[in-house]
């Protein structure tokens, strides 16, 4: 077969994908790099990140403190070598974004300003008001436009990885606007497709977050890691699931129950103070705050709403000036989508699925166990996030590991061989499969299956789980996986239903991986809380879950020891 179409093909045009593309274009201008994304890059979900990006910059801060906060926040499931290299690289990546034009908020002298964030003992979160992800994504996207060596496939949808002789050699993808299906070959592929929040019914995640890359890698034989660790953000707007950033609490917001009481003080998170205290109360880690909500609900101290019980986030005492300067987007979102003004009114909030700690197993350079396949950002699990990610670590993560994966893939691509004719046969198989799906009639509606999957995941694998709820969810997911979907739309031109059917099958894979990983881990750690195994068990589970796909059979689970360098497992202490 001829030489491949690209040296490096990146799936996903969000923060990780664009950072990887720039890394390739700058370090190896001779390489042909491409970004394939199912949406125009500036639509990617990085755009929705609000609060900020952590990187040590203040004089009173240190890399070790950022590392310790991350590791204890992750309940000792982080690989400490990865965390150490991550915190070292983060400030430089954030400075690089500044040089590319990111409008980071400043102090009066013109230096980068930093704010407090949950679980962080020092102020180290860089921010662009409360639209950090938006500015970061547009800065990266606009920066890529100057590199002619970056080719883009906008609104293309990858359906399968091509594998030859054990090596990843490209993808099969659909051009959404025409329905044309094409094999796109490459020496190396980098997955930067983000997370999978849409597996659950109530999520901050955009409609496009369907675990595409996780499923593509899994089907191709790469293991997924730590998939049982699903982060619930404590403050989402009811009904829409719109994120109300942790920065709202970092600026001084209170979480109160139906009696106006700051209930977090009852859950070993410290004592209430007027001003925010680092690593205390509302600035505790997300897993502990979301769990506290469920306990508060059990005590009957939450407030019923048409969309589930809620508590209130109170920003009124911050005043209009602070809210406008530091949280303008939160005010806009409340006004536009909840019809209330946080300057004078309480914001109803409840925990909402937000982030996947788990993902495709990679090493510190972004390489997966499959030769030629790399991953970075939320789709990947290095792991620096362990059992619970700290807010503001995901944006620097996608920059640091996006850049590294780009460099590693470029290196690999230089010495790789062209694919054999074998990939053409695989592509032909895939084209047949996709056309069969396109013409399918007489099955169940996509939305019906999706709603059932989401409800099974919420009741079976939510904030608290046990063997029974997880088994029920596993059975339901298995049944849904064998159901036939039918399409109303059989045309080739921008067929969003065809793509939704493929996304649904990706989500069912991811749901299966989450449920089986959770069933296997008989302990409670971070965001994985088993009511039948309420304690952390380091003797059995100071280890990453690796889950492998098996066609027509339950997945296989294995464990990989956590890398500990300098911080032996200890107690997570907040507010005292």
């Amino acid at each position, binding site marked *: 077969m001829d030489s491949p179409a690209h040296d490096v093909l990146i799936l996903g045009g969000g923060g990780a994908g664009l950072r990887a593309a720039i890394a390739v274009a700058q370090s190896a201008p001779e390489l042909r790099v491409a970004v394939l994304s199912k*949406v*125009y890059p*500036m*639509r*990617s*979900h990085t*755009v*929705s990140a609000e609060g900020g990006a952590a990187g040590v910059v203040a004089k009173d801060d240190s890399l070790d403190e950022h590392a310790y906060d991350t590791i204890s926040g992750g309940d000792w499931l982080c690989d400490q070598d990865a965390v150490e290299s991550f915190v070292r690289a983060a400030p*430089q990546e954030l*400075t*690089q974004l*500044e*040089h*590319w*034009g990111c*409008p*980071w908020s*400043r102090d*009066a*002298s*013109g*230096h*980068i300003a930093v704010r407090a964030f949950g679980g962080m003992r020092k102020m180290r979160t860089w921010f662009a008001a409360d*639209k950090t992800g*938006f*500015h970061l994504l*547009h800065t990266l996207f*606009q*920066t890529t*436009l*100057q590199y002619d060596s970056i080719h883009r496939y*906008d609104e293309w949808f990858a359906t399968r990885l091509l594998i030859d002789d054990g090596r990843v050699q490209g993808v099969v993808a659909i051009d959404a*606007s025409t329905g044309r299906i094409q094999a796109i070959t490459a020496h190396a592929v980098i997955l930067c497709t983000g997370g999978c929040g849409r597996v659950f019914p109530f999520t901050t995640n*955009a*409609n*496009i977050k369907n675990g595409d890359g996780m499923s593509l890698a899994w089907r191709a034989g790469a293991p997924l890691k730590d998939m049982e660790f699903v982060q619930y953000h404590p403050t989402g707007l009811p*009904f*829409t699931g*719109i*994120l109300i950033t942790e920065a709202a609490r970092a600026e001084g917001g209170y979480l109160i129950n139906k009696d106006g009481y700051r209930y977090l003080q009852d859950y070993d998170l410290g004592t209430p103070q007027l001003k925010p205290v680092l690593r205390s109360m509302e600035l505790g880690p997300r897993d502990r705050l979301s769990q506290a909500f469920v306990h508060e609900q059990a005590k009957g101290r939450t407030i019923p709403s048409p969309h589930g019980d809620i508590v209130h986030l109170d920003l009124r005492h911050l005043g209009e000036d602070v809210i406008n300067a530091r949280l303008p*987007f939160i005010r*806009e*979102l409340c006004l*536009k*989508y909840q019809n209330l003004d946080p300057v004078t009114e309480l914001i109803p909030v409840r925990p909402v699925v937000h982030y996947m700690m788990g993902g495709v197993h990679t090493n510190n350079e972004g390489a997966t166990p499959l030769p030629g396949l790399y991953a970075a950002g939320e789709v990947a699990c290095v792991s620096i996030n362990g059992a619970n990610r700290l807010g503001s670590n995901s944006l620097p993560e996608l920059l640091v590991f996006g850049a590294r994966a780009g460099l590693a893939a470029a290196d690999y691509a230089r010495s790789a061989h062209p694919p054999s004719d074998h990939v053409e046969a695989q592509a032909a198989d895939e084209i047949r499969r996709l056309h069969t799906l396109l013409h399918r009639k007489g099955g169940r*509606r*996509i*939305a019906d299956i999706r709603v059932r999957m989401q409800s099974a995941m919420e009741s079976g694998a939510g904030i608290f789980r046990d063997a029974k709820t997880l088994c029920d969810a596993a059975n339901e997911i298995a049944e849904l996986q064998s159901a036939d979907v039918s*399409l*109303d*739309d059989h*045309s*080739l*031109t*921008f*067929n*969003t*239903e065809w793509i939704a059917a493929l996304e649904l099958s990706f989500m069912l894979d991811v749901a299966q991986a989450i449920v089986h990983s959770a069933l296997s881990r008989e302990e409670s750690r971070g965001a994985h809380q088993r009511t039948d195994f309420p304690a952390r068990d380091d003797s059995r589970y100071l280890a990453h879950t690796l889950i492998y796909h098996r066609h027509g059979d339950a997945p296989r689970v294995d464990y990989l020891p956590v890398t500990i360098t300098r911080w032996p497992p200890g107690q997570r202490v907040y507010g005292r």
Partner: protein
Amino acid sequence: MPELVNLEVFRYSPEHTPEPRFQKFQVPYNKEWVVLDALNYIKDRTDGSLSFRWSCRMGICGSCGVLINGEPKLSCATFLPSKSSKPIRIEPLRHFPVIRDLIVHIGDFMTKLKKVKPWIIRTNESPLSEGEFLQTPDEMERYHQFSHCINCMLCYAACPIYGLDPLFAGPAAIALAQRYNNDSRDQGAARRMPILSSHDGIWACTFVGECTQVCPKHVDPAAAIQQYKLTAALHSLKSVIAPRGAA
């Protein structure tokens, strides 16, 4: 009997509905629903072939712009009107080629965006080890508003000039160029000038101001264009006085 809302949705498919038409749908009224929720209700339950773009549902990804009763709007940020006697008419953004139903082709904008060089241009690079460029809040204020563009294309759908002259760079692209021109870290204004001050750059704009009216992020592209006209006019005066650019 729950209250119902009537919608008239533009349909076009080159394969199956080559003659554009409006299709009527009824959805239940729900005070929390935006127009996008109604479209998803139809797609999930009634007609899976109805085609539209959406993603974040929080007004920041810029995907879901359509015409609602003739006005360019984000469908995720427009609540369903209650007790509306007239049907709500939903159409694709005007001035763009329609691919399918409510989905338009925005390739023209993507080409124009790249042409205005929307990235930091430096004549002297400084290494990362020297830290960040200092930028005071006042300096940031000079470009910040223009940096909020979400590329939703509502301004192009509102701009009568773009409708008449497809070569016009258009409001968002000019605002983003000016976003970099006004940034204290940027040294690329001279390189953007040939594109911006050409006939199809700012001068095509007759200052109708519709772009600013419809912008969901208060970017005010009309102000960017007016600002740049002044810059370009001063530059051309100076080039009369000092033709070799000595000024």
